[in-house]
């Protein structure tokens, strides 16, 4: 990539912004998490998170680099339906609201989504689920680490590897210092920064380009982007809807928050967060429709957002985009680091390797796992292997297969273990097949449909008789319970 042609900010300005916000996030992370010494405090913020912080952390985590950078990319590739389809990602948050309430009431002492699958469906389903969940988490981490490096390079010319290293190191540092309290505390400020930044950019873009020139240029050069019957885009819309639901229903990022929120907060927090999230991809994405009007040469599709904003708004706009995407990256990376390390700690380390580990040993291991996960992500991000959207949609085949096993397992006493295992395996396989044979925009759709059919048929043919109290009695905190198996 040609740095001279694409860099908008002076590298020195880039380093100053990076340094200033790095210090801010690390200090805040330490301050918020200063009382998180024990395992429950470190992993779940003491289970007392209130509504304001709950809404903000759900919003901030779901506004990722994929929203701020891939939304413009999708608008450029799929037009109006690209950004509207991305907005439907909010449905996942909204539908998770009642699930969060049920999770909190069924598993008041629960720690991870893996806990639930193990207790509800048994060891085989647990292992299949862990495979899917950890693969997805790693994909998301790589996607965001890559986005960090790409953004810094696009805006400042700073080497991709250096930028990616700095962003990862900062998130690892403050997650290590304060655990989930640090993550949730910084998320509040990051959400406000993201929202203010995105809104300022949108209003300025509306004034500087205007709807008429934007519409006319797109109509002349790329009319498909305005086509309301663009078939691939409509498929993408439904696919993204299911992808978002699958991501949220299975991922420990959202489950750990359901456990961390104080009683009665989960439902309103996820509901409000979902409603406030809906407009963000449209606001962040529509600037890409200005590309034809601006006659901009975009060298890489996933750089279109920062490039258009910098082209429109100059140096101060470039700094603003930098700050917004840095906040979006940090707010998601820290959440994912914390939640994935919880999963590794509880379900792999304690569940498979050290079932008798004490709480003190687990608290120490939690910090080493955060560090190790950060290092692994850094290694996998070193070669820039995939565009953000490609990586994102590849994992869609995996996560969409978990929607029905999770939802049915939470509400249906007779949802069976066999149905869950087969649903996840066959759903993933068919989703991957569709991804390669048809296209990325149907992977989650096919995966969710096959998984649904399998779960429904299995529940009908061989129903289970699960006792809900097993979730409550067996899911007592790691290090305080009697063991790790069902």
């Amino acid at each position, binding site marked *: 990539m040609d740095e001279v042609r694409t860099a908008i900010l002076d590298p020195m300005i880039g380093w100053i912004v990076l340094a200033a916000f790095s210090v801010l996030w690390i200090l805040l992370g330490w301050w918020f998490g200063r009382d998180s010494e024990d395992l429950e405090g470190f992993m779940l*913020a*003491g289970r*007392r*998170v*209130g*509504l*304001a*912080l709950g*809404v*903000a952390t759900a*919003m901030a985590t779901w506004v990722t680099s994929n929203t701020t950078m891939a939304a413009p990319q999708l608008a450029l590739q799929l037009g*109006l339906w690209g950004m*509207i389809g991305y*907005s439907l990602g909010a449905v996942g948050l909204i539908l998770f609201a009642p699930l969060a309430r049920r999770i909190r009431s069924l598993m008041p002492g629960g720690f991870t989504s893996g806990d639930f699958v193990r207790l509800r469906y048994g060891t085989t389903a647990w292992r299949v689920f862990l495979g899917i969940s950890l693969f997805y988490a790693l994909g998301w981490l790589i996607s965001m680490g890559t986005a960090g490096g790409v953004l810094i390079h696009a805006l400042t010319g700073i080497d991709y590897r250096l930028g990616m290293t700095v962003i990862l190191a900062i998130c690892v540092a403050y997650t290590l210092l304060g655990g989930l*309290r640090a993550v949730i505390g910084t998320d*509040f400020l990051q*959400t*406000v920064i993201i*929202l*203010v930044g*995105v*809104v300022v950019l*949108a*209003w300025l873009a*509306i004034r500087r380009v205007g*709807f*008429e020139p*934007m*519409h006319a240029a797109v*109509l002349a050069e790329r*009319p498909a982007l*305005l*086509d*309301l*019957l663009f078939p691939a885009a409509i498929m993408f819309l439904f696919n993204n809807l299911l992808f978002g639901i699958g991501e949220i229903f299975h991922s420990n990022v959202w489950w750990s928050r359901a456990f961390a929120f*104080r009683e009665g907060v989960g439902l309103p927090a996820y509901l*409000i967060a979902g409603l*406030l999230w*809906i*407009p*963000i991809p*449209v*606001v962040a994405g*529509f600037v890409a*429709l200005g590309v034809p009007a601006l006659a901009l040469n975009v060298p890489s599709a996933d750089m279109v957002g920062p490039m258009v904003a910098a082209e429109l708004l100059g140096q101060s706009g470039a700094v603003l985009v930098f700050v917004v995407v840095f906040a979006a990256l940090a707010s998601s990376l820290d959440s994912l680091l914390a939640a994935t390390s919880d999963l590794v700690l509880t379900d792999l380390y304690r569940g498979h390797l050290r079932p008798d580990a004490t709480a003190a040993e687990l608290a120490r291991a939690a910090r080493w796992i955060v560090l190790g996960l950060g290092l692994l992500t850094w290694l996998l991000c070193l070669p820039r292997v995939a565009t953000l959207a490609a990586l994102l949609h590849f994992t869609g085949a995996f996560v969409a297969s978990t929607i029905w096993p999770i939802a049915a397992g939470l509400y249906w006493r007779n949802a069976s273990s066999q149905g869950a295992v087969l649903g996840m395996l066959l759903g993933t396989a068919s989703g991957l097949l569709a991804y390669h044979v048809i296209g990325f925009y149907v992977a989650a759709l096919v995966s969710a449909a096959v998984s649904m059919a399998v779960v429904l048929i299995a529940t009908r043919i061989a129903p289970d008789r699960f006792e809900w109290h097993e979730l409550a009695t067996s899911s007592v905190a790691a290090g305080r319970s009697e063991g790790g198996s069902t």
Partner: protein
Amino acid sequence: MIASIGFLEVLVTGATIVATASPIVLLGLWVRDALRGDLW
């Protein structure tokens, strides 16, 4: 079926107005929780 300028304008302006209100809602909730001692 091509989207009109009006459709684009309503979609983007509406989304931007809602997004503008979001930080205000968040700060309002924060003040409410802080006054009740419910932040953490």
